[in-house]
């Protein structure tokens, strides 16, 4: 019994005008799919139908690529760079103006807490457009030669974990560099991309510069294999990333791939423990752990492990799980039944292989897809939960005795996307950062993103970088390599 209960604080859905049906956004207009097929998108927190969206097949992809090619040849590649920049600024401002609407739709479609879509996803998405708008007319000073050229038509496929933010990571640099785009949103989270299509119309973006074709993996494969795209940009699983790499291997298409991760979060004995605990929580429970750079392997120095774990458990007991639309919610719904099954399957191997599971006492809603915040202690390097990406609110805890052992364990993975270091000693932080094989390393913080900072991984975590000057490189060609 508590004297100090929090009241519900639900955000209103009234601002979200979700249409009952959406077509495909091709050539600046919403059009029906050629075969007339559609599929449902639901709210994962309630399993209620949100909308029916068009299912794009090969012929729709072809129409979208043609539209993007025409826009590239006739308009976008001829437009002065500063004019391109103006469109990007306009899009960024409209996204800010409609931020609340975007946040509500994102939370309804994805299941993430409104606090996160409101404070992280949408502001960062707008920030990416602002940042790249600034680059549009300064590309010749970016260090890619005096006359960097766009690639042409880019096929982009994005995941469901940060639907609008990943769209921004893809579309903003592509357009700034002068490319046109065909984008396929994730099957379970198409709505903010379709809202973004409305923003393109509102901004008066020339028809065909951005095309959005909703669908599933088959739609995505049709896009990757279309002969007239110059580049594939993909964020998603390593498995699909490998398939994409195979299918473009004999073509002139370039690719950037942002794939899985199994980040090590290293806590040294001299860390500020309370701060580290907050960072651990943020690292694994942010966005239900549906984060490719999530700090899913906690590696603690053995002499402080008990203290860290005790504090971590206390802190986990304070996580509020439930209605994503409630402004007090920390952990929302798992995005889909399929993902929930995957989390359950891999977590069960943790029990079977001898790790110890712990979750706070939480009441999960009966409808929708939910998983409690979970940690496994007594994990060894060989356990599946220490090797495979779970992509859910499940943390594997390991320990180390010496700094070199910490590095050895951290790097002993097929991934290398991100890592975290917790220590009050600067020299140790810099030393560890140098040893870690990961594209992004956070020191005494976690999950910090900025459009100016390149993001990407080593090994099976992907090819190339997104964001910053390095991210632009993936959308530009030196003169010798320009297509057509």
């Amino acid at each position, binding site marked *: 019994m*508590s*004297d*100090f209960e929090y009241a519900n604080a639900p955000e209103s859905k009234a601002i979200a005008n979700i249409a009952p049906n959406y077509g495909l956004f091709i050539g600046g207009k919403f059009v029906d799919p050629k075969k007339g097929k559609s599929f449902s998108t639901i709210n994962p927190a309630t399993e209620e139908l949100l909308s029916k969206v068009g299912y794009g097949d090969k012929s729709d992809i072809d129409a979208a690529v043609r539209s993007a090619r025409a826009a590239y040849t006739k308009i976008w590649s001829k437009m002065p760079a500063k004019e391109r920049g103006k469109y990007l600024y306009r899009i960024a401002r409209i996204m800010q103006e409609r931020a609340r609407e975007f946040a509500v739709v994102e939370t309804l479609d994805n299941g993430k807490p409104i606090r996160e879509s409101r404070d992280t996803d949408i502001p960062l998405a707008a920030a990416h457009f602002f940042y790249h708008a600034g680059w549009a007319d300064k590309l010749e000073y970016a260090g890619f030669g005096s006359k960097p050229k766009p690639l042409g038509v880019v096929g982009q496929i994005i995941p469901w974990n940060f639907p609008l933010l990943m769209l921004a990571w893809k579309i903003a640099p592509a357009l700034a560099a002068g490319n046109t785009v065909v984008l396929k949103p994730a099957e379970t989270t198409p709505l903010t991309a379709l809202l973004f299509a409305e923003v393109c119309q509102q901004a008066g973006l020339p028809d065909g510069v951005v095309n959005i074709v909703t669908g599933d993996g088959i739609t995505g494969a049709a896009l990757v294999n279309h002969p007239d795209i110059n580049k594939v940009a993909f964020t998603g699983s390593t498995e699909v990333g490998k398939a994409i790499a195979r299918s473009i291997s004999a073509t002139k298409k370039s690719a950037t791939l942002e794939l899985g991760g199994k980040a090590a979060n290293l806590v040294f004995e001299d860390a500020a423990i*309370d701060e580290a605990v907050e960072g651990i929580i943020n690292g694994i429970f942010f966005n239900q752990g549906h984060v490719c750079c999530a700090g899913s392997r906690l590696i603690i120095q053995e002499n402080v492990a008990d203290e860290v774990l*005790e504090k971590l458990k206390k802190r986990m007991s*304070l996580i509020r799980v439930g209605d994503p639309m409630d402004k007090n919610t920390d952990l929302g719904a798992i995005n889909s039944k399929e993902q929930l099954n995957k989390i359950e399957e891999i977590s069960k191997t943790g029990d079977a292989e001898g790790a110890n599971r712990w979750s706070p006492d939480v009441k999960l809603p009966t409808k929708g897809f939910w998983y409690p915040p979970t940690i496994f202690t007594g994990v060894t390097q060989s356990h599946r939960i220490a090797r495979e990406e779970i992509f859910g609110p499940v943390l594997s805890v390991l320990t180390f005795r010496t700094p070199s052992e910490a590095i050895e364990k951290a790097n002993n993975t097929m991934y290398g996307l991100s890592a975290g270091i917790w220590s009050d000693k600067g020299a140790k932080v810099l030393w560890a950062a140098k040893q870690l094989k990961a594209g992004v390393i956070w020191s005494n913080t976690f999950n910090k993103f900025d459009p100016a900072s390149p993001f990407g991984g080593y090994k099976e975590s992907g090819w190339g970088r997104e964001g910053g000057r390095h991210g632009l490189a993936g959308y530009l060609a030196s003169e010798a390599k320009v297509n057509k």
Partner: protein
Amino acid sequence: MVNIARTELDRIGGKSLPVAAVATAFPSGRASLAVKKIDTQDAIDAGANEIDMVIDRGAFLSGRIYDVFEEIRVIKEICGKKAHLKVILETGELVTYDNVRKASYLAMIAGADFIKTSTGKVAPAATAPVVLVMLEAVRDYFTLTGEKIGVKPAGGIRTTKDAIKQLVLVKETAGEQWLTPELFRIGASALLNDLLMQRMKLRTGHYASANYVTVD
């Protein structure tokens, strides 16, 4: 003043209300230990039930940690069972969170019943991050010793909303067992006025001008 407060309280039927007095060369804390001892003894003799002492920040910041510890210990000895001891850290002058944490531990080990952020004479005073650090300190001290030390943010908490934020900090950091006047208090007369105004609004449905509550 302690005397006057005690007499007046008794006269109007507030015999059960304790009287708190600042002591130890408040607010600077810059006097000899002998003077501080007399100051404290004087307040207790006059009927004070609570002593708010200030630490010597000069000593703390120059590294004479043991002097600070010894002062608190001696004052606590004088308070004995007669008076409750609050130790004011004056966090606005300690500046860093590391210092706040260190001073909190120092005070608790030396015998403080309460640790308090500020004298009210220095800004910034009871900021949320400082209170968080102090709440973490009492929580950890409790884990280590089983002893519960109180926390009192003072200064800078002017609105009901600010106060609610502080209560959330307590609930989520030290825990609900700290949500009692024996372990958590907020010092701020400005807050009282805002609280009265909010209650008036709850009753009448609209805000009155600030002049409808007194400012003393």
